[in-house]
């Protein structure tokens, strides 16, 4: 136990194994605890007793999505998910990690993105949008998630966001090909050294060098790590839904074209549970004229994870049959919604894919909030 606890402390995690009373709050709330062999409560127990099996045989360690439901709810503040990150770090040190995760890390190392696509192509999505290079100085720095930049499924949302911000008169800048993966997932798959030395150290200097007042991220994952882990000084970090909510409230952004759709919203774990941003995305949706907003049953703190976090974008998981995203799109359909709105490129990918697999594509369109907002812009967009 001591070794694991000490190792966790050394890599800067707040894990507190000794506080655990084995109540099961963590495992009971863990979204993958029913569908996979992962039992976080039992892992803590085994750690306390120095009775962990060989880590390499525990493929379920990679099932954790780092949604941090366990961390949020643990009555003793054990921070159970950090045990998994600790164990993943040990696996990374010994080089025993799933191949697809290794490839993603290599992609980040070589090209600055987990998809392994060419760095020079990072800004291709922005062609024709006339986004100002951040180096020319800007009030607001746009930071795109690697998926927002490269993934064709996400790019429409990215473009929409730029159009909206321009329409609201935001002085927006973009780092273009200088931009590199934020590393939120890198940290969570256990590559602590790469996260600290390569991503934070260089990324922090890069972001601060722009001199922007605030950073707006497309992804809750980038938002989370910039806000809570980078130690950025003098820069406000905001998720784009927070920026839009603020612009709407201050009257700088005006939505005039009705979007006559019934829409429900899925809370991303890194935005909702972990950073308590629940109201802004809803406020933005409610501000769209004509839009009929409906809620699912499991929302806010009880939102169901899409299974895209914690490295799961790069690792299928041990149960490909029974995915949480399948349940989630069904829940959305049950509300009568035509659109499942999301605020995260990972959620978009996971849920859109699930709708396709489940044959619900006709009934339910998975869209980013910015894609809905841009429709409401009218001529300005």
């Amino acid at each position, binding site marked *: 136990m001591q070794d694991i606890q000490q190792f966790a402390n050394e890599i800067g995690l707040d894990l507190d194994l000794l*506080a655990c*009373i*084995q*109540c*099961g*709050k*963590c*495992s*009971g*709330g*863990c979204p993958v*605890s*029913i569908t996979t062999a992962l*039992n976080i*409560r*039992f892992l803590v127990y085994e750690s306390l007793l120095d009775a962990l099996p060989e880590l390499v045989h525990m493929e379920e360690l990679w099932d954790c999505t780092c949604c941090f*439901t366990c961390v949020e*709810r*643990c*009555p*003793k*503040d054990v921070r159970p998910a950090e045990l998994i990150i600790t164990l993943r770090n040990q696996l990374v040190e010994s080089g025993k990690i799933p191949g697809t995760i290794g490839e993603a890390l290599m992609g980040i190392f070589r090209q600055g993105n987990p998809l392994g696509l060419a760095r020079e192509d990072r800004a291709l999505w922005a062609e024709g949008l006339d986004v100002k290079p951040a180096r020319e100085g800007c009030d607001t720095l746009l930071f795109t998630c690697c998926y927002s930049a490269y993934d064709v499924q996400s790019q429409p949302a990215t473009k929409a966001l730029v159009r909206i911000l321009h329409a609201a008169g935001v002085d927006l800048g973009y780092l273009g090909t200088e931009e590199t993966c934020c590393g939120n997932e890198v940290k969570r798959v256990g590559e602590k050294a790469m996260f600290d030395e390569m991503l934070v150290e260089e990324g922090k200097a890069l972001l601060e060098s722009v001199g922007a007042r605030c950073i707006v991220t497309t992804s809750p994952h980038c938002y989370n790590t910039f806000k809570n882990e980078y130690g950025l000084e003098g820069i406000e970090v905001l998720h784009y839904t927070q920026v839009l909510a603020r612009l709407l409230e201050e009257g700088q952004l005006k939505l005039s074209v009705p979007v006559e759709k019934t829409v429900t919203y899925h809370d991303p774990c890194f935005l909702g549970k972990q950073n308590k941003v629940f109201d802004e995305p809803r406020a933005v949706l409610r501000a769209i004229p004509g839009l009929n907003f409906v809620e699912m*049953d*499991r929302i*806010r*703190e*009880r939102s169901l994870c899409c299974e895209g976090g914690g490295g799961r974008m790069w690792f299928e998981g041990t149960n490909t049959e029974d995915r949480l995203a399948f349940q989630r799109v069904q829940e959305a359909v049950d509300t009568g919604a035509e659109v499942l709105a999301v605020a995260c490129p990972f959620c978009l990918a996971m849920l859109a894919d699930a709708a396709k697999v489940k044959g619900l594509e006709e009934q339910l369109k998975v869209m980013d909030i910015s894609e809905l907002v841009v429709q409401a812009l009218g001529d300005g967009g």
Partner: protein
Amino acid sequence: MMSEKSKPRIGVYVCHCGTNIAATVDVEAVAEYAQNLPGVVQARHYTYMCSDPGQTLIKEDCRALGLNRVVVASCSPRMHEPTFRAAAQEGGVNSYRTEMANIREQCSWVHHDKEAATRKAKVLVASAVAKVTHLEPLEEREAGVHPGTLVIGGGVAGLSAALDVAEAGFPAYIVEKSDRLGGHVAELGHTFPDLEPTADWLAPLIRRVEEHPAITVMLDAQVEEVAGFVGNFEVTVLQGGQAQQIDVGTIVIATGYQLFDPSRKPEFGYGRYPGVLTTWELEQRLATGDLVVAGRAPQDVAFIKCVGSRDIQLGNPYCSRVCCMVAAKQAQMVRQALPETRVTVFYIDVRAFGKRGEEFYDEAREAGVRYRRGNVSEVYRRGERLVLRVEDTFLRRTVEHETDMVVLAVGMEPRDDTGVISALLKLPRSADGFFLEAHPKLGPVDTTTNGVFLAGCCQAPKDIPDTVAQAKAAASSALIPLIRGTVPVISETAIVDAELCAGCGMCVDVCPYGAPALDPLWGVSRINAVLCKGCGACAVTCPSKAICLQQFTPEQIMAQVDVLTV
């Protein structure tokens, strides 16, 4: 310069406090060091100085060696100063010529490094020796007592305390914020561990209180201000916009608790799903017999325990102590009312302490209540029913338990107005927000304010028998000054050297108690010792030190400073 008579002959007694001190401080070395300090005649160390043999050691030394001053290096003076003062007095040394070096709370318990702790202990002993050298003998003093006790709060604790005070022949005044007596308990239909109807015993208790000639009940009333000190409290009570003053000798605080609001645990869907209720709400439902959920009797009822308790993230780290038994009680009652209904209690631990607690737990299981171990993580809806997502830790499997009614066993929290009472009576609160008792073991009903006592859940969560026991204990303690008729008042008052006093009157201006006044004939300050509380504000203000606070004179303090800066 010291006269021969008062030339210091000091005894120094270093306590091991078992291993509490001795494990971290080399007590032998401290005693050896003390032996060479100026004025020290004898220095000893002993396992427990506060024990009978320890005190005897001091008394015998005082007589045999002709000591005139005693230093005890042990725990905080807040703990045992009265003990050692009494021991010295019995040995023939004026009790005010004792001084304690706090080498436990402020040394051995807060430092690991034995060498550094020993060094510090030596310095603290030297400081105490320096101070005791300058201490003068003082007389014990007493003041009269207003016969009567104020009881704040008219719940079970307040009722029990008031009744005991009144039965002893003294007036008791109950000040109750609401419009009725009985507190939370009056809203309970039945009580554990015997399922007795509450009204069977509460109503007679309330009647006895209401009819007692020595008890004054003030409903819709609040304490507005408290002045004075033990034996002589002047309490202003506000009732119906009217302020009235009550003079009492002692005060019992019995303000109770408030229930945890489970909307602070959003994962349970309280306030969102009509089928999710608190144990408090179920109590009312059981009283009326209305257990219908969604139009029908529930086929399945699930209890969730420790809601709002044992939770560091909420700032409620404590166990609320009654929820396990409340759940066992209500689970049994649901089984009685709806014999076909499956009743499951989800728990982390079952705490069935107390008389008949474990038996009551047995009875619940015998009545068919299922106990499953697991802290429910989440509640959501599936069709018409509710689902508890929980790991049954014995099965080592997370399950979805479908149910119709979820009962949250909500814990106790300090009342929101605890701070108001705390400010009125200068009572410290423990980190959890409840009132802090003077000592966790030896003074569980006392407070740091003399003459003010705690009863019931305002001090910490507890059940009815414990509440009544504490209330009766508080009443007994509150009666001591009333029965004695006098209270000791501090001897460490300010005194004036009229030769030095220039009559500037600044002492008069700074004293909050009106103790000093300028003598109209001589133009010098005089202290009314009865009014003096010994704060020392006048002494600091006086530039020539014509006023000094006895036991804290400049000579004494400067001698300590001198030793401590070495």
